């Protein structure tokens, strides 16, 4: 099993969700986050005074899927969330040791 953490532009969330559902992903967690990467924020003006927005709003998607699906899922997210402009985001893939479904006690592949 793999945990895929993808940080993407918020406006791409719906598209990414649809694309992942289409390839058979059955669940995900979504969090609104703020942060910075190579984009390193930007400046805005409020009442005539310039200020730095150091943390840019992003959406973090987390999904746990069978290892065999991981590459496909990563490609799908990359393709869907890409605009080619700075700030498109990052994807991290981690190993998952165990998964349990709370309702039934099923484990690992049966649980996800």
């Amino acid at each position: 099993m793999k945990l895929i953490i993808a940080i993407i532009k918020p406006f791409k969330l719906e598209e990414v969700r649809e694309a992942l559902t289409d390839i058979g992903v059955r669940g995900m967690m979504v969090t609104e986050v703020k942060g910075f990467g190579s984009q390193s924020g930007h400046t805005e003006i409020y009442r005539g005074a310039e200020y730095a927005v150091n943390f840019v709003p992003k959406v973090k998607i987390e999904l746990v899927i069978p290892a065999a699906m991981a590459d496909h899922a990563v490609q799908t997210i990359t393709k869907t969330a890409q605009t080619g402009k700075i700030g498109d985001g990052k994807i991290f893939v981690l190993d998952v040791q165990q998964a349990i479904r709370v309702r039934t006690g099923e484990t690992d592949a049966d649980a996800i």
Partner: protein
Amino acid sequence: MNTLTKLVLPGALIAVPAMGIAQEDTVTSGINASTDTVFILNSLLFLIGGFLVFWMAAGFAMLEAGLVRSKNVTMQLMKNVALFSLAAIFYYLIGYNLMYPGGSWSFDGILSGVWGPGVLEAVGVAAADADDYSYASTGSDFFFQLMFCATTASIVSGTLAERIKLWPFLIFVIVLTGLIYPVQASWKWGEGFLDQAGFLDFAGSTVVHSVGGWAALTGALILGPRIGKYNKEGKTVPIPGSNLTLATLGTFILWLGWFGFNGGSQLAMGTVGNVADVSRIFANTNTAAAGGAIAAMIVSQIMFKKPDLTMTLNGALAGLVSITAEPLTPSLGAATLIGMAGGVIVVFAIPFMDKLKIDDVVGAIPVHLICGIWGTIAVVFTNSEASLGTQLYAILVVGVFTAVVSGIVWLILKAVMGLRVDEETEINGLDMAELGMEAYPEFTNG
């Protein structure tokens, strides 16, 4: 405000018997309303104008609640409801008679000789016993004038938000509404020396708005900026407001209330001429606000690459303040231009205040003080009775008086009880530290 012309003809006819369908046939032009009718209509104008101006208190409360951070919203609301209520009581106790001496001066044209609470007419007063049967009821006049006094105090609370202690602020409000405002207002509207000098200020660009602005400015200078507003390099750090929806609602409420503010200041509605003038004032007031909003939106787009909503809201209010000194004589076009100039002024004045390190949370000083001065000067463009010299003289006299007296009161309060909350309170927010309650307790973080 306009001097009332007595237009009532003795024994004038009224077309009462054939009201309704046949009305048009029976009303003959040139027949004036009876004394009773004029009394009723004038009083009605004061009452309608008064409750519209009352509603401006709601506008100020919402505007300020929207432009402070959520950790200070409850305190800002508390100050707004308390300042209005204190203004109502102290204007009754001494303010009303200080403002309208009715010819009895302690010092001629400078200080009223009538010290004491306002007194209304008896219940169910007969025409013959009315204080001024040829004009309007005392109660309606008191109610209307009180609302203007409260407006002056509302202006101050926005500027000093997020750092001033509740009680010293409220004590200042008592002095402002019981003494400072009524005394200087008597110079113009109580037929004092500025009125005799020919100073024109129809609904109070100077008498109301600049006075609030001067009191706010001296308060801001003595109180100092909020922690974190200006960084070590001296650059301005914006502190965005918590709720621009409320700020916009507040601006529209103020815009609505201003029809009472300016329209009611015609002070009479008993003749065709007066009603036409009130209508003209409504239309001019509205177009000046629109001009101010559009000008601020466009100028902020040009200067900052994006139109700034808070400045656009300030622009609408700037247009309203600018037209308040003379909402009657301008044409619709001239009124729009006067308002637009106000809108341009605020967009430049807000960053300028920041350059001077004067922290004005809601922009009340640019809107009410600077545009109040502009509006008072702008009278000379459309009213041939106005003289630039007299207008400037009055701006100066009222400004110096208000700034000096306010400054003394602020400094005494600072020495006796302190004006500012401590650093920890300011950072944690005044709501929890001073009131123990939050405006949005179910939200996770301000």
